[in-house]
C-alpha cells in the first residue's frame, strides 16, 4: 500500500505541475478570491452556490479531476449513506453532489466508478431513500453493497495506537483512486463527523472503535490510507441531534463545500464552518499530532471562492 501510495503521489505531483500551467489562468478567473493564483491550492472552500456548482468551482481550483483520476483507472467514491432518511434531513451526502463526482470521474476516463457505505440502518433502504443509489446509477457508476462481513478484508494498521488492524471493504483495497465524500454533521459520539470519521464506513467492526477510545481509533485508522481527495458536503448541515437527526429543524442551510487532499485540513476547515474550533474535536487533534495532516489553516495555501 505504501509503495502504491508513493507511486500515486509521484504521479500526482507530476500532474500537479502540469495542471498548474494549463489550469492556471482559467482557475484564476473562476476563483474570484484574487488573493493568489497558486493553483492548485492545498484546500479550497466554496460558499454561496448550489452543491454541484460549488463542486465544479472547487475542483477547478484544485487542479481539475484529471489531477486525481487517470484514464482507465478504477475509482471508489465513499459518500455517507449511513441512514434511512430523505436527502433534506442532511444525514447523508447530497445525492446531486455524488452524481456530479461520479460523472466527472467517468469523464476523466475512469474505467469504473463505485460507491458504497457500510450503513447503520438497513442498507437497501439507506441506498434508496438517500437517493444516492439512483444518483450513482444515473451518472453511470456502480453502487455496491457493504452489508455483510464477506465484503471486508483484514488489514494491518502499523501506526495505530489502539487500532492495529481492521477489516476494510475490498473495493477500497482494489480501486486505484479513493474519493471521500463526507457530509458535515453534528455527532453525538465524535462531536463532529467529517472526512476522518467518514472512513468508519469502510470498515466492518465499528463496535471495536467504540469500545477502544473512539477518537483515537478514528485517528489510528486514518494512518492506514488517506483518500486521494476529500470533498466535504456542507450545503445542508445537521447542527444538532446528529448523526441521524430527528427532523429538518436540525438542519441549517450553510451552502459550503470544502475540498482537500488532506483529511485533517478538510476537517479543521469544516469544523470552523460548523462554528466549532478544531481543538474541540479530539480526533482532529490526534490526526494532526500523528502527522496525518495539518489542522493549522493559516500555514496553508487556501482558495476561497464566494459565489
Amino acid at each position, binding site marked *: 500500500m505504501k509503495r502504491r501510495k508513493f507511486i500515486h503521489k509521484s504521479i500526482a505531483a507530476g500532474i500537479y505541475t502540469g495542471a498548474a500551467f494549463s489550469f492556471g489562468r482559467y482557475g484564476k478567473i473562476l476563483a474570484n478570491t484574487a488573493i493568489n493564483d497558486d493553483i492548485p491550492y492545498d484546500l479550497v472552500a466554496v460558499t454561496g452556490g448550489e452543491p454541484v456548482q460549488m463542486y465544479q468551482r472547487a475542483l477547478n481550483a484544485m487542479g481539475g479531476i484529471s489531477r486525481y483520476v487517470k484514464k482507465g483507472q478504477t475509482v471508489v467514491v465513499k459518500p455517507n449513506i449511513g441512514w434511512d432518511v430523505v436527502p433534506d434531513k442532511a444525514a447523508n451526502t447530497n445525492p446531486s453532489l455524488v452524481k456530479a463526482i461520479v460523472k466527472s470521474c467517468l469523464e476523466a476516463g475512469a474505467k469504473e466508478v463505485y460507491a458504497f457505505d457500510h450503513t447503520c440502518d438497513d442498507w437497501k433502504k439507506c441506498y434508496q431513500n438517500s437517493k444516492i443509489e439512483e444518483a450513482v446509477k444515473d451518472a453511470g457508476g456502480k453502487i455496491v453493497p457493504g452489508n455483510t462481513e464477506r465484503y471486508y478484508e483484514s488489514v494491518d494498521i502499523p501506526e495505530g495506537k489502539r487500532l492495529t488492524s481492521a477489516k476494510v471493504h475490498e473495493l477500497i483495497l482494489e480501486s486505484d483512486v479513493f474519493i471521500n465524500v463526507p457530509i458535515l454533521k453534528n455527532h453525538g459520539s465524535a462531536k463532529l463527523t467529517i472526512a476522518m470519521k467518514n472512513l468508519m464506513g469502510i470498515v466492518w467492526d465499528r463496535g*471495536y472503535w467504540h469500545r477502544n477510545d473512539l477518537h483515537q481509533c478514528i485517528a489510528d485508522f486514518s494512518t492506514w490510507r488517506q483518500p486521494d481527495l476529500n470533498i466535504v458536503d456542507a450545503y445542508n448541515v445537521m447542527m444538532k441531534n446528529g448523526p441521524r437527526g430527528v427532523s429538518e429543524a436540525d438542519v441549517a442551510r450553510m451552502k459550503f463545500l470544502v475540498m482537500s487532499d488532506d483529511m485533517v485540513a478538510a476537517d479543521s476547515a469544516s469544523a470552523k464552518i460548523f462554528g466549532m474550533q478544531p481543538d474541540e474535536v479530539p480526533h482532529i487533534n490526534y490526526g494532526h499530532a500523528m502527522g496525518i495532516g495539518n489542522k493549522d489553516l493559516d500555514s496553508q495555501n487556501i482558495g476561497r471562492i464566494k459565489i
Partner: protein
Amino acid sequence: MNYKALRSARIAVASLSLLLIALAFFDFLELMPDKLIKGSVWLQFVPSVLLFSKVFTLSSLGFAVVLLLTLLFGRVYCSAFCPLGILQDVILRIAKRFKKIRFKHQKAFSWVRNFLLLFTIITILSGTTLILNLLDPYSLFGRIFSDLFRPILMLINNGMASVFERIEVYTFYDVDIKLLNWVLYLTPVMFLYLIIHLTITHGRLYCNTICPVGTLLGYLSRYGLYKISINPSACTDCKMCERDCKAECIDLESQKVDNSRCISCFNCLTSCKFSAIDYTSAKGAPAGRPEKTPGQEVDTSRRKALGVLFGTALFPSGALAQEVEVEPDTATVPVVRKQYVTPPGSGDVQEFLTKCTACHLCVSACPTQVIQPSRNEFGWKHLMQVRMDFHTGFCNYECTRCTEICPTGALTSLPLEDKKLTQLGKAKFVEDNCIVKTEGTDCGACSEHCPTKAVSMVPYEGSLKIPEMDDSICIGCGACEYACPTTPYKAIYVKGNAVHVLADKPKEEKAKKTEFEGDFPF
C-alpha cells in the same frame, strides 16, 4: 363433467397457491409487495379464524370461504390451498420418481383424529395455543420454509453473489444468515421428517390423522354437496382408483368412499377407466367418460439440476470471520429483561401471544431480521412465537412491513406515522456497563442510532458525554441496544411494554443557526 380438466384445474390452483406462499416465506430479498404476501395467505384457515376473532371484519372472512367451499365441494382447501397439503403432493411426485408408490385402503384412525382435534380445542380454551401452533398446517409449513429452507436459499444466493461479484455484477448481494437456537429447529425438522415419511407410506395420513384443520373440515365434507361416489354397477373392482387415492379412503369392498377423509384431489376420477367413479351433487347428473392419464417419465436432467443446486450450497465462497485478538470484557452487570419485546402492531403482549401461530411469515419478511422466533422468553408455552431480538437487528424506523403482512391478527396494520410513535418498550441504561464510565472514553453509539433522540448525550466528566434517556419519546426500536458495543452484557437494553402505548412526538426545535452569514471563518 370433464374430470381430467377438473383435476388439472385443481393442480393449477394448488401450484399457484404453493408457489405464492412459498415465495412469501422465501422473500429475503423483499421482492414481493406486502399486499401480495397478505393476499397469498388470506385463505389460510387457522390464521383467518384468529384474525376474525380479533377484528370481526369482512376482510377476515377467508375461513368462511373455506367452510363454504368445503360444504359445496369437499376438502378442496386441503388439496388446492393448504401449502402443507400441496407440499405433500410435491413430495409424493418426487418420491414416485424413485419408487413405485401404490396406496391401499386403510381404516381411519378416528379416535386419534378426534382426540387431537378435541385436545387442540381444549388447550386453546384453557389458554394456550401451543398445540394449535404445533399442528396448524399453514404455520408448520411456514416454519419449515422460513426456518429450514430459507437459510439454504440464502446460502445459494450468497454463493451466486460471490460468483457474480467477480464479474462486477452486483444484482445479487450477500445476505446475513441468522441461525436459530437448536431447540427451534426441532419441531420443523421432526415434522418435516414425519410428513415425508407419512406421505411416502400412506399419502395424506398427516392430513387425515394429525391435522386438526383436516379433521374439522372432514366433519363438514361428509355433508358436502359435491362428493366422490362409486357406481357399483360400473365398477370392475380393478383397484386403479384405490391405488391412486392418497387419502386411502376408497373402500372397494363396501364400494364406499370415506368423504371425511377425501381431500377432493380428483385423482380417482381420472384413474377410473370405467366411469365408475363420479363427482356429483347428491342429486347430480351422471358424469361423462374420463380420459386416460399419461404415464410419468423419469426426467434425469432435473435430478442433475437439483444435485448441482445443492452442490453450490455446500461450497459458499464466503470467508468465515477471523477475529484477530480477544478483547477483555468491560461490562459486569448482567442484563435481566423482565419483559421481552413483541413486534409493532401487537398491542397487548398477552393478546398477541394468543394470536401468533408462529408461522414465521414476519420473520421472513422483516428486512432487518430483528423479528426472531422465541425459545422460552415468553415461557415454554410460547415456543416459536416471535419476539424482537435486538442482538440480531433493530426495528427500522420507516418500516411497517410485519404489520402489513401478518395473517392472524397478532400484528395489525399500523400506518407509518402511528408506528413511529408506537412504544414497544423503553430503553433502560446500565451505567456501570457503559464505556464512557468504565473506559473513560467517548462512545455514544446508542444515541447515534436513536431515531427520536430519546437517548441523548449529556455532559459527564470533563468533555465526556454519557447517555440519558427520555422515556416519553422512546419507542423501543432497539437501535440503541443493537449498537451498544459493550461485552458480554449491553449497557442499554429495551424492556418491553406489556401493552404498547403511544410515545410523545420527538421534539422539533429549530437549530440556532439556520443559515450561514458572513465571511469565511478561516
